[in-house]
């Protein structure tokens, strides 16, 4: 484990998180949330939590994003904040 790498990815995670809640387009937010989850799974892999990372990659970055996209598809992309 290299802590510098860990720190860089953590920064990415935080940026993705902030991006996901600030972007004024729900589809974009969903995709950014997917990126967030993926970065998170990388972070966990670095920390040695391979199983958790694997699950997050498939659940968080994969299926959750699909759920968000389909929910946005059934509702609206528009958002005021």
């Amino acid at each position: 484990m290299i802590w510098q790498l860990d720190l860089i990815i953590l920064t990415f995670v935080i940026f993705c998180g902030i991006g996901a809640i600030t972007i004024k387009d729900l589809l974009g937010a969903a995709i950014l949330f997917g990126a967030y989850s993926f970065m998170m799974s990388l972070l966990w892999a670095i920390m040695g939590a391979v199983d958790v990372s694997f699950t997050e990659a498939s659940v968080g970055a994969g299926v959750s994003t699909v759920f968000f996209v389909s929910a946005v598809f059934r509702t609206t992309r528009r958002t005021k904040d």
Partner: protein
Amino acid sequence: MVDLLTIIISKYNYWGYIVLMMIGLYAMIVKKNLVKKIIGMSIFQTAIIFFYVSIGMKKNATIPIISHGHDGGEHAVHAVDFINPLPHVLMLTAIVVSVATLGVALALAIKVYQQYNSLEEDEIDSQIKVK
């Protein structure tokens, strides 16, 4: 200087989880859009998972899979060599819980949208008041 660095190294992951948790909490408190709130909720839950994973971390240890699989019991397994598996187990459960919550929350959001034709809380509130 070196001391400060050690402190930072030893704690920044915990700080990271706090920052993420607060991002999630902020989104849930301030944002008016329901899907945004749900995203905030997911971030909030992930932050806690992150916290647990950080707890499990152990320096100079490897992933919790015993590599010398089935070659008999002669190789003693030392606890210091492996990362703590327990938080990982807990977090597998927590991830699944969070995706389940996400599914239900999104279903509810769709139902809300079908009813009010809007996802913005303030617009919905004004609709409720008009009625």
